[in-house]
């Protein structure tokens, strides 16, 4: 308990120090960077009325974040719906693994900025293109972790499935899936983090309402303090998502 308080206090000190650094930089070398005080006074409206809708691109910050979250949820769901079975398939077949692992390693590091134009060409609409990009970029950790999980199931458990003569479905539900679950969840957590990272790029390029779209619009309108508002919001939402997934993961592993 005492340690928890101590580390919380220290993290607050860190935030304050970084705030001071921000203030110092904005006052000296980077004159265009809005100071913390200016950012607060210009963003107050968006923070204090977080759900208000004044126009298509002029809405409270939480409302904007909720649009983004909804979009991320759809893309993430798509990613794990495709990624998990794919991981199982590649993990359980050495032939498929050898066939597709190199291709996956090539596709994995491609930036969302590269996928998005392709999505726009394929779907001709910004929303499906954004989902395509999110799913395609965030899928890989789920695929790779699930694959790795299946590959590292202890031989003992596979022997149990063999000597009990379990049917294919029983083997999957009683042995393969439970043994892989912790790995899968690590994959989901990393995928969600990536999906949130991709959203900003997707919204910036498609101009859809959300934190990323808002950020790009305010850059074009020269209201730089709102860029910082968006950046901080993105960071905090990402942090919260990761913490929630982390909590779910610990609970799962304890069970």
């Amino acid at each position, binding site marked *: 308990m005492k340690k928890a308080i101590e580390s919380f206090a220290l993290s607050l000190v860190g935030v304050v120090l970084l705030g001071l650094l921000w203030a110092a930089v904005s006052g000296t070398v980077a004159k265009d960077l809005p100071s913390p005080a200016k950012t607060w006074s210009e963003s107050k409206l968006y923070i204090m009325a977080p759900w208000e809708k004044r126009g298509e691109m002029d809405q409270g910050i939480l409302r904007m974040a909720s649009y983004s979250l909804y979009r991320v949820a759809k893309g993430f769901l798509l990613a794990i719906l495709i990624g998990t079975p794919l991981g199982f398939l590649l993990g359980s077949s050495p032939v498929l693994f050898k066939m597709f692992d190199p291709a996956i390693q090539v596709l994995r590091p491609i930036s969302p900025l590269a996928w998005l134009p392709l999505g726009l060409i394929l779907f001709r609409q910004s929303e499906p293109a954004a989902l395509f990009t999110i799913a395609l970029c965030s899928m890989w950790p789920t695929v790779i972790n699930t694959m790795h999980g299946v590959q590292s199931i202890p031989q*003992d458990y596979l*022997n*149990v499935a*063999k*000597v*009990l*003569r379990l049917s294919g479905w029983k083997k999957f539900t*009683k042995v393969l899936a*439970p*043994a892989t679950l912790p790995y899968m969840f690590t994959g989901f957590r990393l995928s969600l983090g990536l999906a949130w990272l991709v959203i900003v790029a997707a919204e910036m390029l498609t101009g859809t309402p959300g934190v990323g779209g808002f950020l790009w619009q305010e850059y074009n309108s020269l209201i730089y303090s709102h860029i910082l508002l968006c950046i901080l919001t993105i960071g905090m939402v990402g942090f919260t998502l990761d913490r929630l997934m982390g909590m779910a993961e610990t609970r799962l592993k304890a069970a």
Partner: protein
Amino acid sequence: MALIELRGIGKSYGKRDVLRGVSLAVEEGEFVSIVGASASGKTTLMKIASGLVAPDEGEVLIAGAAVTGFPRNTAVVFQNYSLLPWLSAVENVRLAVESSFPEWSKAKHTEQAVKYLEMVGLGAATLKKPSQLSGGMRQRVAIARAFAVEPRILLLDEPFGALDALTRLTLQQELARLCQAQEPRATALMITNSVDEAILLSDRIVALGRGPGASLSEAVPVSLARPRAADLMMHDEEAIWVRGQVSEFLASSGDGGAAKRAAARAVANAVAVEA
């Protein structure tokens, strides 16, 4: 005809010969133990007998037919329990019952699982996960799982190897009791590194010489009346004689040639005692 028959089994891993020319026939209802030191190829032999690993030479016959894959009506008890950690004791046993008797109702599956857990003294721990059980209790669950499918063949791969000496003694007696109680008696093949354990449970004992290229000694019959008490090993003449036979073979089997000589000597001694 023998129920389980190993014919000239040979297996090597890379350049290392693990087993060479291993032959053994186990009659229906018989309990046969294979005693060997660690790293003598015991586990490999068991994996071959249970169809988990294919031999390089020779074949395994069950009731006269060559086996490919894991044989039907067979249960295995592994040294390391091999329980699924995400299932409770009763779920672990029930999973085996379900796949052996798919025609039964759900209630009957549970009933059978609980019945066998009670038989090994775990009636109060049916809902516990393996991680909440001690090593001895886990192996009890594994034994219940093996007997709950009412197997015709029982394969025991160093079933008590991971347990402390006291727990080992109790569980040996329980296994003997379960085997006696089963009707009809299962045919059992046990691998162990303890001669006393083999004497306590078996009808016949064969020794597996030390590798590389290990082969089996002649079988030593054990005709002691059952149930056999653990202190029999100290006083009973036959028990002492059997232990001497098996131990001598194990001690002298440094290489293939020595193993053959020892096997010959064992046979000679056996004849001498009978005469």
